[in-house]
């Protein structure tokens, strides 16, 4: 069973504020899904569980001028909530 503290810890890791009244509902929802998905733990699988999803292969390109400077800057910055002199603007970090 997930506790209120568990939800707070997950919310911090995921960078999402969760209100007090929402914590209980989330714990209940997540418990129900986790109870369902834990059936996988009962399945016997081969010991080799190196996560391998899809086929892995390198995709390379010539190390040349793939991204000419400034070509997209204006269009990209047009979507930014806060910007200044061609930069994204953020608040205090520490």
């Amino acid at each position, binding site marked *: 069973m997930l506790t209120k503290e*568990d*939800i707070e810890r*997950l*919310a911090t*890791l*995921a*960078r*999402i*504020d*969760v*209100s007090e009244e929402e914590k209980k509902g*989330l714990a209940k*929802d*997540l418990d*129900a*899904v*986790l109870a*369902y*998905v*834990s*059936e*996988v*733990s009962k*399945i016997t*699988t*081969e010991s*080799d*569980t190196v*996560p*391998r*999803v*899809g*086929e892995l292969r390198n*995709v390379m*390109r010539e190390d040349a001028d793939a991204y000419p400077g400034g070509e*997209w800057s204006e*269009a*990209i910055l*047009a*979507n*930014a*909530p*806060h910007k200044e002199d061609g930069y*994204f603007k*953020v*608040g*205090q*970090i520490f």
Partner: protein
Amino acid sequence: MTIDPSTLTITEAHRALRAKEYSAKELTEAVLLRAKNKNPEINAYAELFEDVIESADLADRMLADGSAGDLAGIPVGVKDIMLIKGKISAAGSKVLMNHRAVYDGTVVGKLKSAGAVILGRTNMDEFAMGSSSETCAYGPVKNPIDPSRVPGGSSGGSAAAVAMGGALGALGSDTGGSVRQPAALCGVVGLKPTYGAVSRYGLMAMASSLDQIGPLAKTVADTEILYRAIAGHDPMDSTSVPEGHSSRRKGAQKERLTIGIPESFVAMDGIDPDVRENFRATIEKLKQAGHKVQSVDLPSLPHALAVYYILMPAEVSANLARYDGIRYGYSKESDKLMEVYMRSRALGFGKEARRRILLGTYVLSAGYYDAYYNKAVAVRRMITEELMLVFSKVDVITTPTTPSPAFKLGEKIANPLTMYLEDIFTVPANIAGIPGISVPSGVVSRENTYLPVGVQFLAAPFCEDILFAIGKEVERVRA
């Protein structure tokens, strides 16, 4: 000549455009009018574009100079999760309500150069997370067959647009059934191609090891036309499979196909009896048409849904980390950076998105990683190997597409787990990266309304041709 968008197919429209029975402009105007009339009730579209006549004029020039392909002048809808340069691309989320696409996604570029007319962006569950299109920030989509019911999801707007005659075809994205399930519930055809068959450049990522773009249309032939237009290798998507790669094996074309049924899976509790009866009747007709039907053993298949609801949220929690209120999207102001993150994400994301991000964070966190994520990856491999073994004996595997016909709005939204069970038959294709198609297989009766249901076929990687062949057989035996 009158144009009836509710019955018109891409194939027939193409013939008529070629024969100059009407122009691309006239066709576009007719379909757009239909979309505008139906949209206030159905809400299939988030936005119908203003500049569609320009695209239609371009298509008319292609038709005049002989450079027109199958899609020239064909009005289509595109799910609000694929980038269309200069247009808002919101993925059904409050987070991206003001986000304007900087470039065309590869599939959008391909549609445009084929001369297709993109009428608008279709509504969807927020970030493609849902099976009912009720979590859309632009409001819920209704099923055109019965507006008190959901169209399915997450590509519910694309399916509804086609079903209401507001587009001759549409693109959706399918992570666990999001093209096939709404196609079944709205009575249209939907294809999830092989993983890597269609470029995802310009598709907003939900779960990257599962996502695939796929077409929806009224017939299998139309679906095939759209698929051929969007498929192919793209250097801009590293998961797109190069032409000539060994995995691109072609299935042999044969008149009589061998159809495998995972009997114990289809007999599971929770499947609507009418849906099961419709499925049996469809298979019986295919048998009478000369196809061979046999039972196949896929013992791990019922675990696919549990595997999906571990892997998908894990990938969601990573992919949706980008929505932080800094570079684009919803941003809640604060002079402290951490508070911008915490508040923007709390207020921007809807309930289901937050639920899945937290669930994904849980299954990836220290102490649970091996028990959930790694175990799910191992079971995923088991399921894939079982399927590949079965495809050495049969051409296709078949199941109903969904466990029940379209449900009522509000019926499942409060209980996430019941909603998740909608994906039980569609999820295995995403888990194994194989193609799957849903074809209308008739109707079941509910409260004096006939609701459509679909039959699903799965094939080995890059064997879409076999799916089109069997899909056309279903259309033929049901006609």
